[in-house]
């Protein structure tokens, strides 16, 4: 019975969202996913009817920049957080003395418990400006004008934007991935690792070829857990992203917005739309977020399934 509750809650929330979003889905159509304008229209003026749905004149909802911003910031967060988390987990299990390891573990767990609004505030007031003043200019000045890297060129802005968002998100998901990965590494039996050492493999080869593959599916699961958090993180990103609605940033530093941050930042003004169409469009935005999260999870499951065939069976005794 208890197992049904989470699944039931998920289905119920998606159904409610879909019902709420219904009119918006009908009117906005594919433009919602591809368009780059998010306009409430004149909420005090004339009301238009499209397919029998009332909405303010001039309203138009295209969420592509928000969807892109969500994927971009989450991708940056993963690129930063995964290596750091794996490195930290590896150091905690394999390298550091036990007493230091347990202190650091405690620190990581504390970080996981810091409310995101605090991290957001710190990001907006301290970290962002600091990076924009002392770090970003150095990076930007040294980037050659070649594809991909030119994305890191000037202007660097004032600290609100995509890269700061990605860094803040990384900070928030490192504890999740690192503590899960630490538990996984601790489960890798000593015997295969010793086998690698006895064969004359370097420590790095043992890690790369034996320890990591041994828990590969678990690590992918941990990463998806972090990605889920990054995709859905709201308040901190609303504070450090610049909370734009209609712009995809031209470089990695620029201000932008994400789906989750837009929902919270647009809720107040959406209530001013007497037709309820703005609320319906926000519900559609939420629906998109749940679908993206669901797709990411399914993709991860698929990858786990594909790569699992060579890794060790769970519970192999050593």
């Amino acid at each position, binding site marked *: 019975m208890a197992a049904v509750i989470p699944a039931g809650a998920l289905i119920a929330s998606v159904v409610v969202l879909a019902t709420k979003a219904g009119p918006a889905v009908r009117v906005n159509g594919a433009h919602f996913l591809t368009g780059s304008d998010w306009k409430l229209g004149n909420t005090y003026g004339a009301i238009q009817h499209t397919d029998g749905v009332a909405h303010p004149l001039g309203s138009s909802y295209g969420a592509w920049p928000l969807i892109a911003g969500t994927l971009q910031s989450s991708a940056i967060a993963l690129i930063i957080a995964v290596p750091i988390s794996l490195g930290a987990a590896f150091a905690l299990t394999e390298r550091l003395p036990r007493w230091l390891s347990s202190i650091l573990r405690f620190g990581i767990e504390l970080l996981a418990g810091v409310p995101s609004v605090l991290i957001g505030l710190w990001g907006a007031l301290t970290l962002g400006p600091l990076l924009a003043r002392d770090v970003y200019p150095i990076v930007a000045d040294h980037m050659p004008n070649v594809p991909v890297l030119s994305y890191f060129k000037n202007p660097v802005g004032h600290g609100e934007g995509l890269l700061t968002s990605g860094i803040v998100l990384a900070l928030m998901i490192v504890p999740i991935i690192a503590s899960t990965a630490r538990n996984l590494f601790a489960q890798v*039996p000593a*015997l*295969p690792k*010793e*086998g*690698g*050492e*006895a*064969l*004359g*493999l*370097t420590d790095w*080869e043992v890690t790369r*070829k*034996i320890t990591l*593959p*041994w828990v*590969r599916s678990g690590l992918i699961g941990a990463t998806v857990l972090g990605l889920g958090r990054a995709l859905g993180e709201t308040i901190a990103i609303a504070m450090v992203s610049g909370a734009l609605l209609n712009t995809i940033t031209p470089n990695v530093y620029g201000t932008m917005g994400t789906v989750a941050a837009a929902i919270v930042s647009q809720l107040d003004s959406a209530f001013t739309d007497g037709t309820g169409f703005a609320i319906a469009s926000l519900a559609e935005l939420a629906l998109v977020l749940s679908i993206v999260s669901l797709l990411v999870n399914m993709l991860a499951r698929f990858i786990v399934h594909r790569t699992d*065939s*060579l*890794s*060790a*069976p769970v519970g*192999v005794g*050593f």
Partner: protein
Amino acid sequence: MTESSNNGVGPNVPLDRRDPATGQAPGPVDPALEAIDPDRGRPANVIATRGLSLRFGDKTILSGIDMLFPRGTITALIGPTGSGKSTFLRTLNRMNDKVSGFRYGGDVLLDDESIWASHQDLLALRRRVGMLFQRPNPFPMSIRDNVVAGVKAHRIAKGKQLDVVAEERLRQVGLWDAAKDRLGDSPFRLSGGQQQLLCLARALAVGPEVLLLDEPTSSLDPISTENVEAMLKSLAPALTLIVVTHNLGQARRVSHHTMFFYDGALVEHGPTEVLFEHPREDQTERYVTGRMG
């Protein structure tokens, strides 16, 4: 003990070719003779321990072990649990080095050079002194990749050569027919005995001179044990084998030479026949006759 008491242990013991007068290895080697016997001109004892003492922190595991391991022989290390024989074995390829609190006294010589000498490369040392463990420990990669894991790491072969190495080594351990159609599969679907043979193939693939075996059949059924034992016997004299075993029958069946450890001391060692049939020490006799476990 003296060095000479180690000669004539069994039919596989190569003659000591050192000049009896100077104790030095003979001069330049005739290439033809070298081709017939690549070990010609090398020290007769591939491993020698000199007053070896081992400690973990304050606890002394073994002390004052002087022992010679003639090239091409199989030596069994027997003794009750906790007698120090596994620690001794794991010292020979420096597996204990990173265990916290590990200290050693005396020395271990591999081809007359200390394994702890500053010029010894640990990875190269482990290529020369391989190891097989208590339980099969395949890596989480395909059967083929398991066999060539060490070959790749030491850059002994690459590309298509790896397939040749994999086949050759799987054939050598008698696993080829069982594995040839599933080289890309997980090794964890093989039986325990097959997994252990796979690990043996993996250890042999890097071309070691010495193979350390830490109770290699203790987790296997009798048929698999018989397979592995037959394999081990066939490896000498090309390789020198040092086997820790709790199975006295196994020690008698496979080894030329046996060392009996008891309570941190090497009580007695000698040709296997002699040690089992005419032990000098009372403790040895009680252990090998089953009156002490």
